[in-house]
């Protein structure tokens, strides 16, 4: 396996700096929100993790489409990498949302349209990982994965737009807010700047992790090939 390319090393460094920058923006630059005060600072990482989670599920769907067209295993590796990383980020987003909700909504969880669709989204992709493991033939596994992620990606826009389509207590941060939402707050320019900085920082971190996970997938593929060579 080739050592880390220089551009990946640069990306590692940029990701680390952006992550520190995001923490600095959240804790040192963004002002305290009047009603929720400290706990509102969860919002910045909550939204950034949710964004990256959804982005990754869409990346996986695109990789799946390319696999179906080209039938090249490398796109299956990209797809799996994107799903795995997105599952982690989306799980964090759900956990952070729940922790934020406890003092604001007075409950850890409620079967609100946004929370329900988010939980379903996470479970759809968790099932993807489990079902993949049951298929031994690499081509069949890749074909299954490609179709699954393509169909599964339909749940991403449903989750994203659920707070705009249904009556919900989840706040709509960008765009027209529903008055029934609990935990709405007015975004000041420093809060907006912090939110967008976190979105950019986490997008770069996602790209870096994706690259590392793809390399891991390539290494796993090499090991699988060597095993077959030794057995023959």
């Amino acid at each position: 396996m080739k050592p880390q390319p220089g551009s990946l090393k640069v990306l590692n460094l940029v990701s680390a700096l952006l992550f520190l920058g995001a923490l600095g923006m959240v804790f040192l630059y963004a002002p305290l929100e009047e009603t929720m005060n400290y706990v509102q600072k969860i919002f910045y990482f909550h939204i950034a993790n949710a964004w990256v989670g959804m982005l990754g599920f869409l990346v996986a769907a695109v990789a799946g489409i390319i696999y179906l067209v080209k039938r090249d295993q490398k796109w299956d590796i990209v797809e799996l990498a994107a799903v795995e990383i997105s599952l982690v980020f989306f799980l964090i987003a759900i956990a952070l949302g729940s922790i934020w909700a406890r003092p604001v909504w007075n409950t850890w969880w409620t079967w609100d349209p946004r929370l329900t669709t988010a939980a379903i989204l996470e479970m759809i992709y968790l099932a993807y990982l489990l079902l993949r493991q049951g298929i031994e033939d690499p081509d069949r596994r890749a074909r299954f994965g490609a179709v699954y992620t393509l169909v599964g990606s339909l749940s991403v826009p449903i989750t994203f737009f659920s707070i705009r389509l249904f009556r919900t207590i989840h706040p709509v941060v960008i765009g027209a807010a529903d008055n029934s939402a609990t935990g709405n707050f007015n975004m000041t320019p420093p809060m907006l700047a912090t939110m967008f900085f976190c979105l950019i920082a986490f997008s770069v971190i996602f790209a870096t992790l994706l690259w590392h996970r793809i390399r891991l997938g390539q290494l796993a593929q090499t090991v699988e090939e060597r095993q077959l060579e030794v057995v023959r």
Partner: protein
Amino acid sequence: MSGLDPAISVKYLVGGYTVFFAVLVFYLASLFARWRNLKRNLQSLEEIKKNQ
């Protein structure tokens, strides 16, 4: 909604970021462990192949 008690609010803030770092560190550690194991497996397989 009346303002949250800052002492309670900060407790949830710490809890949230603790969960964030715990999950992230666990995932990064799992990536590292899987990489190390695969490298080890590859080395063993290369040796077996050489001896065949």
